[in-house]
């Protein structure tokens, strides 16, 4: 019924032969190229790409269904014809009267004569040959049927033929035209083609519409994403009407925008703060110089002016140094040089450097240090201690105390710096590690703070894999707790 035909080294697809290997055919090489072209199409034609895949799948299913329908119908038609022919051939064989082993005569019954006497394009006919292949009898004198090589059933021209071995070496063939069957098959094929094409076209149209609808949110997402830029971070994708998956995507993109905006805002704020921190001392220097140079001044006036200028210059220096440290930390250029050391003497050294400051402010500095060995950057660790203890002294009250404790807890170093100072209001606590955040602006500046100390301290702690926390009560004091792993 179906078969693959091999001809001059090429495979051809014959309907019904699904397992045929056509991988090396020109046809497939071409379609492979087309498929690859579809797969690499730009994003804009995703809709077309989807539709083509959809159409290919649909075409394959429709074609398979149509072929099966057609082939099954043809088989049942021909089986029916073949059955009829087989019965007639058997009956015909029964009419053969053997005379000897090699000779016979034919005697047809009346209904058989009538049967084969029918007229029309599909009229049945028969032929009988003897053992030698000599035609003995046939229904119509004009018939010119080739002698079949063996019994069986086959198609010849527009008809089916059935041959079987009769008695005394005879060969009986019964045939019949199949014009009616062919017409029915042609009609079925036409119906399959028309209905199949209609279904294909309709479903493709629906597919085009549906993919368009499904992809519309992607267009919206991409449009919204395109309007977001460094100068306009406020745009967001409207997720209200989006289907689940795309809604999720849009939400994800939106939250990325949120984080981006947060980062940009922070950066803008930081730049503005840094500019402010430098502009203020710079204006003092400039204004003081302008004023002093207006006329000849007395020596004390010059001295005062220079002291003011030096104060401002020092402030700028500390801001610039802090900014440099943080900028290097941000870009990862500031690497820690860790070594294993006992933290207790390091804390002690850092505190000793601050004893004059403590004495000047009338603050009592107490230390309770247990030895703890850890891998730390010596210089940064000293800076960390100096920052925390320095703050504890500066923001203390006259006659206050600063307690520095170092001990082991769960295998980690626990460094506590507690003061009896002015404290930090609760709503300000979350911000104190932010760059340039000052709880008491005037006081911090008067004390020469750059506004970056705690930001740097936090960076140092986190770069060591540690954690810094703060607890404070206004009027009672503040305690910073640093937890550092062994390294």
């Amino acid at each position, binding site marked *: 019924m179906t078969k693959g035909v091999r001809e001059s080294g090429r495979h051809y697809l014959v309907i019904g032969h699904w397992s045929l290997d056509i991988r090396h055919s020109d046809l497939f090489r071409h379609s492979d190229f087309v498929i690859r072209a579809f797969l690499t199409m730009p994003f804009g034609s995703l809709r077309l790409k989807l539709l083509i895949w959809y159409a290919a799948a649909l075409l394959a299913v429709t074609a398979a269904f149509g072929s099966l329908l057609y082939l099954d119908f043809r088989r049942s038609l021909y089986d029916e014809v073949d059955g009829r022919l087989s019965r007639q051939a058997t009956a015909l064989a029964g009419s053969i009267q053997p005379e000897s082993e090699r000779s016979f005569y034919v005697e047809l019954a009346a209904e058989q004569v009538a049967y084969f006497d029918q007229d029309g394009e599909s009229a049945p006919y028969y032929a009988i040959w003897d053992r030698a292949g000599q035609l003995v009898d046939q229904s119509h004198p004009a018939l010119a049927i080739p002698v079949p090589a063996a019994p069986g059933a086959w198609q010849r021209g527009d008809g089916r033929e059935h041959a079987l071995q009769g008695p005394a070496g005879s060969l009986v063939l019964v045939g019949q035209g199949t014009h009616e069957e062919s017409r029915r098959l042609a009609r079925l094929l036409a119906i399959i083609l028309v209905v199949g094409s209609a279904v294909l076209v309709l479903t493709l149209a629906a597919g085009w519409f549906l993919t368009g609808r499904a992809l519309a949110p992607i267009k919206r997402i991409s449009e919204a994403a395109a309007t977001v830029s460094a100068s306009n971070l406020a745009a967001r994708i409207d997720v209200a009407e989006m289907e689940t998956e795309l809604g999720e995507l849009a939400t994800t993109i939106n939250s990325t925008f949120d984080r981006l905006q947060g980062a940009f805002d922070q950066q803008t704020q930081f730049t*503005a703060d840094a*500019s*402010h*921190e430098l*502009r*203020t001392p*710079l*204006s*003092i*220097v*400039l*204004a*003081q110089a*302008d*004023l002093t140079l*207006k006329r000849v001044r007395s020596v004390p006036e010059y001295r005062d002016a220079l002291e*003011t200028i030096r*104060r*401002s210059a020092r402030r700028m220096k500390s801001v610039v140094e802090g900014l440099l440290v943080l900028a290097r930390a941000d870009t990862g250029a500031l690497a820690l040089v860790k070594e294993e050391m006992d933290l207790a003497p390091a804390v002690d050294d850092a505190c000793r450097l601050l004893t004059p400051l403590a004495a000047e402010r009338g603050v009592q500095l107490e230390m309770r240090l247990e030895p703890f060995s850890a891998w730390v950057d010596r210089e940064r660790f000293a800076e960390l201690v100096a920052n925390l203890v320095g703050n504890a002294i500066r923001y203390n009250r006259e006659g206050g105390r600063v307690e520095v404790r170092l001990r082991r807890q769960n295998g980690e170093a626990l460094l506590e710096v507690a003061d009896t100072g002015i404290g930090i209001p609760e709503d300000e606590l979350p911000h104190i590690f932010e760059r340039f955040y000052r709880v*008491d*602006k*005037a006081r911090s*500046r*008067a004390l020469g703070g750059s506004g970056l100390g705690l930001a740097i301290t936090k960076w140092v702690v986190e770069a060591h894999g540690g954690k810094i926390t703060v607890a404070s009560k206004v009027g009672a004091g503040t305690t910073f707790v640093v937890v550092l792993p062994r390294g």
Partner: protein
Amino acid sequence: MKILLVEDEEDLLQVIGTALRESGFSVDLAADGETGLAKGESEDYDAIVLDIMLPRLDGWAVLSELRKTKTTPVLLLTARDAVTDRVEGLNRGADDYLTKPFDLDELIARLRALIRRSVGSPSPIVTLGTVEIDTAARTVTKDGQPVELSAKEYALLELLALHRGRLVTRTMIYEHIYGEEDDTLSNVVDVYVSNLRRKLGGELIETRRGQGYIIR
């Protein structure tokens, strides 16, 4: 001319204060927003120099609050130079804007221009008959001849000239030509007036007994 200077940076406050005093202004100082607002509301300054980033009450808040009761010219000082900041400042009722770091001379020139505009005479030259006052150069001539005046004499003359045709009370004089650091003695004003009459002619300044002075 009396200026209120609101600035939280102690050094900057002192430097600008001194510079303004040396330029003939009387100056009151405030180191935070609350003090600044209180002073600005209780007195009639000729102009206010206001920093934006202030402790307790920031410059924006001071400005908004002040504008409810006063039309005193305000010059904003800020360390930010974003356009939005300048626009916001002007929209909230500031009259001028300077970004830190600034030039002292520019600050003073802008303050003088602000004050002139606020009393309705944009030109720095005020002519009173044969007497001519250059409020930018702070010089006075009579019949084309320069006249030497002390700082307070000049301040008094300028005050009267800028309020020409209007009565200037003794209270106004105290408020406008004396700063917080001056000792105010009432009879000193009479001395200044008689000095001005001697140098510029007796008919220039009229006395309204028990009320004040006026230049017609």
